[in-house]
């Protein structure tokens, strides 16, 4: 390859060089970025990574970036939290939470993929960047486009959470609300991408964009002291993240940064939109698309583009997939917040409750190390908790009133 990376068809293997393109003209299958791993061997080392910046650019040697690329965007390298109290609550072995609820700049893991996609957009000369989004991606594209000097056009299903809409508009992005679900928005965007020279981060820039998800995997391994966990639980919408974390782990093994190990990949979905978990549980190779009906709107993709590969990743790793109800999603949000002080969005409730289910089923063993991927921030989906915490009447600012109030609360709590 002329560069240290290029696009390759996942199915027929045709090489495409580097261009804004997401599928192979020969067989209409998806494209994937492949690297010259021999050339990367001397560049992608523990020492060089440790000497890099404390953000995702420390992994640039295995990201699709041009030589001498530099970015002012401070994205990634989020905390890996040892979650002892959560482990106690779930009767689990060692648990870690990869906390992308505090990924910068827009508080979701989508900041990672957008950082890489905008590097590609710059390289290919786009002035307008765009995306179809269930919200988090919209926020990330809007914010990073503003800082990087792109114009942004964002397409969303009309019923998104209010916070995700304001968090897109405030950056000056053009917001187009579509009367339809995400799958319909996505199909429209693939048609728009044919008619306009726009850089759609998750359409014609998708192979580059998706590589950004690998940095979740690199960080987990580095933060565990350059070792891999036994299990990882990953929320699934389009199904890309789980496949890319697996790719990251395999690259780390291949290049000798970690010891080889079979990591079991567990996929998490909401029961109201569970095409991937259902296929895994039914032993199917193919996805049956669904019409989403779940409070986990960031996971509400009924026709997941990477579903086929997600199924394979889970199955080949010896993992499994599960899904949880809306009530369980809310309980999962509360459990994570109450035990670890991390307020995750609905997708995080899905991950936490699915982990609980898998531990109870014995699919995640109690003596193994498990990482939960939290991908977004609860402040963006506060609607999910509507009615969960009724407010008491306000009390007068007087000590005697408070003492009376306290006695009443104690009595209520003890049932006297």
């Amino acid at each position: 390859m002329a560069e240290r990376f290029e696009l390759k068809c996942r199915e027929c293997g045709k090489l495409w060089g580097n261009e804004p393109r997401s599928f192979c003209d020969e067989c209409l299958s998806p494209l994937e970025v492949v690297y010259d791993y021999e050339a990367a061997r001397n560049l992608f080392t523990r020492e060089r990574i440790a000497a890099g910046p404390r953000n995702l650019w420390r992994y640039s040697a295995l990201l699709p970036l041009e030589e001498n690329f530099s970015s002012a965007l401070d994205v990634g390298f989020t905390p890996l939290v040892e979650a002892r109290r959560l482990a106690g609550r779930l009767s689990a072995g060692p648990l870690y939470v990869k906390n992308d609820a505090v990924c910068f700049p827009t508080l979701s893991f989508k900041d990672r993929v957008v950082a890489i996609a905008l590097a590609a957009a710059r390289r290919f000369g786009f002035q307008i960047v765009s995306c179809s989004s269930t919200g988090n991606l919209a926020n990330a594209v809007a914010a990073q486009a503003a800082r990087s000097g792109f114009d942004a056009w964002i397409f969303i299903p009309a019923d998104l959470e209010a916070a995700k809409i304001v968090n897109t508009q405030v950056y000056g992005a053009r917001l187009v609300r579509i009367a339809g679900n995400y799958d319909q928005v996505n199909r429209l965007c693939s048609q728009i991408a044919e008619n306009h020279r726009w850089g759609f981060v998750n359409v014609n820039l998708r192979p580059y964009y998706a590589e950004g998800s690998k940095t979740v995997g690199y960080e987990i391994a580095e933060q565990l002291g350059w070792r891999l966990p036994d299990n990882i639980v990953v929320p699934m919408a389009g199904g890309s993240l789980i496949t890319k974390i697996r790719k990251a782990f395999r690259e780390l093994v291949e290049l000798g940064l970690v010891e080889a190990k079979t990591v079991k990949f567990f996929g998490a979905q909401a029961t109201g939109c569970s095409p991937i978990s259902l296929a895994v549980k039914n032993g199917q190779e193919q996805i049956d698309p669904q019409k989403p009906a779940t409070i986990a709107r960031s996971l509400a993709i009924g026709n997941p583009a990477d579903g086929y590969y997600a199924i394979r990743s889970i199955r080949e790793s010896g993992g499994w997939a599960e899904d949880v109800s809306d009530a369980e999603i809310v309980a999962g949000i509360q459990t994570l917040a109450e035990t670890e002080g991390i307020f995750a969005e609905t997708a995080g409730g899905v991950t936490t409750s699915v982990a609980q289910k898998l531990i109870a089923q014995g699919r995640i063993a109690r003596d193994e190390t498990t990482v939960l991927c939290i991908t977004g921030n609860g402040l963006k989906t506060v609607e999910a908790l509507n009615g969960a915490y009724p407010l008491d009447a306000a009390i007068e600012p007087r000590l005697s009133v408070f003492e009376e109030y306290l006695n009443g609360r104690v009595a209520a709590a003890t049932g006297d």
Partner: protein
Amino acid sequence: MAFTVEIPTALRRFTDGAHSIECASASLPELLTELAARYPAIGKHLRDDAGQVRRFVNIYVNEEDIRFLGGNDYRFREGDRVMVVPSIAGGSASLQADLRPARRAGDK
């Protein structure tokens, strides 16, 4: 009975540049056969070895995924608008297959 099939840019080189084609098949399997008969090169791009629509090709009828309408059992109606849309996945299931050619390239 006639309906329209919209052809994506990537496949127009197989349809003499036509953006849309008038078709008269009753069902999806028949439509794939009709298209292959009229534009032989398009057949292998839309169908896999088993004759089914390729995994990464989505077929929509009047904005709805044909799988929600019965898939192969759906009977086309007069005036239907059929869209062929390549899926836009970008995933990675087996890295080993990707590593090998890259390493060979590096060995040269």
